[in-house]
C-alpha cells in the first residue's frame, strides 16, 4: 500500500518533461492518469526512482476535429471522451470508453495512457488499431508520427523511445456510411477483458464493405490487428456468411493463453463470437441505425 520512495516532478511544459525523461533515463516514468502505474507502485511491482507528472502541462487536454482527424490530447480523460459531444461520430470510441474500468478510474485514466502502457489487456489499443489511428510522440528532437500498426511492439513495449512522451492520438474522421463497435466480455464490470473485439467499417455506395478495421483485446502478447479478417471483408457485402468467415479468420489471428480469466480455447471462440456481434452492430450503425 505504500510505494518505495521516489522523486517527484511536475513540469510545466512538454520540453521540461522530456528533459527530465532524458536526464533520469530508465529511472523515470511518466505519470498521466496513473491508474496503471500507481497500482503497480503500491504493490512495489514498479519502483521508478523518478516520476514525471505531466498533468500540469497546458494544452494537452484537447479533443478536436481538425484536418480530417479527431485529435485526442495526452491528458484527455476517458470520462471526457465519453462526455464529449463530438464522440457520437465515433461510436467505436464511445463503446470503448464506457467499458474501461469504472467511473472513478475513467475520471483520471487517459486515452493516450491506455495506449502508452502497451498492455494488450487495455481496451483502446484494439480500438485504435481498428481505426487506423496515428500516435504522435514528442521527444528531444521534436514530433514523430507513428502509425498505430507499428506502435505495439511487444508485451508492455511500444515504439516510444525512453525520452519520448505520447502527446496525442489522431483518429481519422470516418466518412459517411461508417460504423464501429466494441464488444467486450469480462468477468465483472471493471475487469480487463476475457476477450474483446473492436470493429470499424465503411460501406461503399453499393453497400459493400469498402474498409474494415478489426482489433483484438487481451488475446495475445500484444494488441492484435486481425488483418486477414479485414481483408476478407473488403469489396464484399456484409452477410451472415461473410461475417462468419471474417470472424473465423479473426479467431485464427489471436494467440490467447489460459489464465485466471478463462481457458485459451474459450477466448479464441469468444473472439469469433464477438467479432460477429461487433460486425453486426457496426453494420447497423453504418447503415444509419444504433
Amino acid at each position, binding site marked *: *500500500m*505504500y510505494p*518505495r*520512495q521516489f522523486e517527484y516532478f511536475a513540469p510545466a511544459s512538454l520540453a521540461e518533461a522530456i528533459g527530465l525523461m532524458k536526464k533520469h533515463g530508465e529511472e523515470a516514468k511518466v505519470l498521466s492518469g496513473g491508474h496503471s502505474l500507481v497500482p503497480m507502485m503500491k*504493490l*512495489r511491482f514498479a519502483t521508478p526512482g523518478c516520476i514525471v507528472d505531466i498533468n500540469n502541462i497546458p494544452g494537452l487536454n484537447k479533443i478536436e476535429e481538425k484536418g480530417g482527424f479527431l485529435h485526442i490530447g495526452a491528458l484527455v480523460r476517458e470520462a471526457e471522451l465519453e462526455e464529449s459531444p463530438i464522440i457520437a461520430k465515433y461510436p467505436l470510441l464511445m463503446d470503448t470508453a464506457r467499458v474501461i474500468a*469504472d467511473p472513478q478510474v475513467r475520471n483520471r485514466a487517459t486515452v493516450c495512457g491506455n495506449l502508452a502502457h502497451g498492455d494488450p489487456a487495455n481496451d483502446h489499443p484494439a480500438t485504435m488499431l481498428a481505426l487506423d489511428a496515428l500516435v504522435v510522440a514528442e521527444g528531444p528532437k521534436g514530433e514523430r508520427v507513428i502509425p498505430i500498426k507499428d506502435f505495439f511492439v511487444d508485451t508492455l513495449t511500444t515504439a516510444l523511445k525512453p525520452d519520448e512522451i505520447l502527446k496525442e492520438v489522431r483518429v481519422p474522421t470516418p466518412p459517411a456510411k461508417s460504423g464501429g463497435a466494441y464488444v467486450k*466480455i469480462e*468477468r*465483472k*464490470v*471493471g*475487469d480487463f477483458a*476475457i476477450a474483446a473485439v473492436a470493429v470499424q467499417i465503411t460501406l461503399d455506395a453499393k453497400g459493400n464493405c469498402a474498409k474494415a478495421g478489426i482489433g483484438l483485446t487481451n488475446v495475445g502478447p500484444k494488441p492484435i490487428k486481425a488483418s486477414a479478417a479485414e481483408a476478407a471483408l473488403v469489396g464484399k457485402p456484409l452477410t451472415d456468411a461473410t461475417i462468419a468467415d471474417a470472424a473465423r479468420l479473426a479467431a485464427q489471428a489471436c494467440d490467447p493463453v489460459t489464465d*485466471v480469466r*478463462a*481457458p485459451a480455447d*474459450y477466448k479464441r*471462440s*469468444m473472439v*469469433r*463470437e464477438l467479432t460477429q*456481434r461487433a460486425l453486426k452492430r457496426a453494420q447497423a450503425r453504418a447503415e444509419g441505425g444504433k
Partner: protein
Amino acid sequence: MSATTSKEMGGVGQSVKRKEDARFIQGKGNYVEDIYFPGMTYGAFVRSPYAHAKIKKIDSSKAMKVPGVLAVVTAKELAAHKLDWMPTIAGDTQAVLAGDKVLFQSQEVAFVVATSQAQALDGVEAVEVDYEELPVVIDPFKALEKGAPILRTDKKDQKSNLIFHWEAGDAAATDKVFKSAPVVVSQKTHYQRVHPAPMETCGCVANHNPATGQTDIYMTSQAPHAHRTVFALVAGLKEHTTRVIAPDIGGGFGNKVPVYPGYVLATVASLLTGLPCKWIESRSENLQSTGFARDYHSVTELAASKDGKILALRVKTLADHGAFNAQANPSKWPAGLFSICTGSYDIGAASVAVDAVYTNKAPGGVAYRCSFRVTEASYIIERAVDTLARELKMDPVELRQKNFIKKEQFPYKSATGWEYDSGDYHRAMQVALDKVGYAALRKEQAEKRAKGELMGIGISSFTEIVGAGPRKDFDILGLSMNDGCEIRIHPTGTATVRLGVKSQGQAHETTFGQIVAEELGIPVDNIVVEEGDTATAPYGLGTYGSRSTPVAGGATALAARRIREKAKKIAAFLLEVSENDLEWKDHRFEVKGAPGKTKTMAEVAFAAYTNVPPGMEGGLETTYYYDPPNFTFPFGTYIAVVDIDKGTGEFKVRRFVAVDDAGTVINPMVFEGQIHGGLAEGFAIATMQEIRFDEGGNIQNGTFMDYLLPTAVETPHWELGNTVTPSPHHPIGAKGIGESPNVGSPAAIVNAVVDALSHLGVTNIDMPVTPWKVWQILKEKGIAQ
C-alpha cells in the same frame, strides 16, 4: 408473542430507522484504522512466497538499518515467551510466526515494527529470508495418499495429513436402507474455497500502559470477550487489566472470529516497547492469509422409492482445512452443524462422514455467513434433491413438497439428532411459487426449449440452524455459548442496554433497543445499546452464526422481563394495590378494571431511586445470562430464473424470489437489508468467487483484481417474501435472519443453470458457474461453436 406495537414506541415489528447511521453517514465511524495514539508504532509482516519450505535463515540486519524501523520479531524471539505457537479455536495449534518451516504461501514469517506504516513496509522489503522449498500438497485427495509428504511435522503424533474423521447419524441403518432402495442417486460436488472479504480488513491497535499495567486492545473482533479470555490463556495477560474493544467493525461475515498472528504480534510489540502498536493488514494479506470459507468435497447419495419418497441420505465429505485446523467451530463439533444436511426433508435414515485434511494453504474453513458449515450442508442436499428429481423425471418442486417435513410434525427430530423447533415449509414454498409465477415460467421454458433457447428455473428450499447454543453441548474453547444482557433503567426513565454480542453492520443498536422498548414501554429513542467493550459489556460469545437474535435477543427479552417483575412490585406499591391487581397493558402498568390508575416504566424508574418499597433493594437494573434451550431453525424457499447466452455461456439472473421465515421479525427494514446482502454474497459465490491455487501452492486470486466481488451492475434485483412461523422456545419467537440468504441462494442459482441445460443431459456444474464452464458444456453438446 404479539409483534404489534405503537410506532412511537419503536417496538418489535417496526421499521425503526437505524441509530448507528448518524455517525456513519457523516464519516464519523470509529473503525480500528481510525484510531491514533501519540507515539503509536506500526507493524507489518514478512510473508512467505512459498507454500511449503524450510526456513534456513532470517537476516534482519538490513531491515534494522531502514529509517524508522524499531524491531524485527521472529519466531525465535516469540519462543522465549512461549508465544511462537498458539492454540486455535478448533483445538489445534497454529504458528504465530513460522519457525523452522512455512506451510502456506503468505504465512507470517517476521513482524517489523516501525514509526510509520510506510517505514514498516520498507523494513519488510529489507528482511532477507533463505528458504529451501519442500514438496507441496495442494490436492486434498492426494494429501491422504500413501507417501504424501507429512505437513505437520511439528505435531509429534501426526502420522498423516488427516486431521480428524467425524460421523453423525446411523451408518449401519442408512447402509441397510440404501441396499434395498429402488432408486439411488449420487451427486458429487465441490463447494469451492471462497473468502468472506468484508470491506474492512482485519487489524488492531494494542496499547499497553507500563505505568498502570493496563493493556487495551482495539480489535476487529466479532467476539471481544472470547478474544480477551483467549489472550489471557495464551499470552498470560490478566483479564482484569486487559480490555478488548471492538469499535465499529466494517463487516465481519466470520472473517473476524479467528485469532490472527497480527493481533498477537501487535500486542507483544506494545508489551515489549510500552508504545501503542497498530497492525492493519492489506487486502491482499486479508485474502491470502485470513480465514477462508468452505472447501468441502462431497459425495451425496439419496435413496428413494420409485414414486419419490426419500428414504435415506448418505454423505461423505473431504474437508480441506489448509495448514492449521483454525476453523471457528464449537469445540465438540469439528464439522460444525454440517449434519443439518437432511435439510427440510423428512428422511428416516442418514449418515454423514467428514474427513478433514491438512494442505499447504492458509487455514480457516468456517466463515462467510456459513452458520458453522450449514452453507455446505444446505448446498449438497438441495443439489442432490434436484438430481433425484431429474432421475425420477419429477418436477423439483413436486419432489420437495412430497418430502417436506409437515407443519404438524414439529418439533421434529431429524435422523442426525437435531430437534427442529418449528416450520411450515409448504407455505413458504407456495408463497415463492406464487410470487415467481412458477407454472407460467415452466410453460415459457418449454416454448423456449423448442426454439433452442436456454432458460432455467432453480429451487432451493433450505432449513438452517442458528443460535449457538445450549451450554450443555456448545462451547468455544470451553466457553459456554450462553450470552448476557445488562439493562439499566436510569432514574429519569431512559435506559442503557449492554450486550456480549457485537454488530458488524447488523443494526444491533437499533434492534435490541426495539426488544427493550417492546418489553418495557420505553420509547426506543430513549434507549442506548452498547456492545464491544469488555470493560463494560456483560460476557458473551459474540456475533456470528446468526446467534445474536436467538441468544442475546433472548437474554435481552428475559432481562427486560426480570426488570418488569421488579417494576411491577414498585408500581403496586406506588398505586397502593397488590401485585395481582396490576396488569401490563399498552406498555404500562394498569390497575385491573381501573383504566385511569396507571404507572409508566419511567415513573417506576424514578421511584426505584427515590421511593422504593420498604425492604426492597433500590435501583432498576439487571444482568441476565441466557442459556438457549435449543437452536432455532429459520427456513425458506428461493427461486432463481436464468437465461443463458448460447454464444458466450454467460447467463443473467432474470429473477430471484426469496421467501424467508425467521420467526418474529424485529425490524422489517433491517430484516430485508440482511437478506439483500446475503443473497448478493450467495450470488457471488455461485457465479464468480473462488480461491484457487496452482500446483506449486501459489494463490491465483489473492487480490480484488482476481478475487471477484460483484458490483451493482452484476448483482440481481431481489424480490422478497416473508412468512412468520415463530420459534416456540424463543422468548420473542425470533430465529435470526443473518445467514439464511447465503445458506439458501447458491443452490438456487446452480440448480437454475443446471435446469437450463438438463434436457441436454447435464446434471452438475461446480461453482463458480462461470461463462466458460457453461460454454464448455454447450460445446460438448454440440450447441456452441
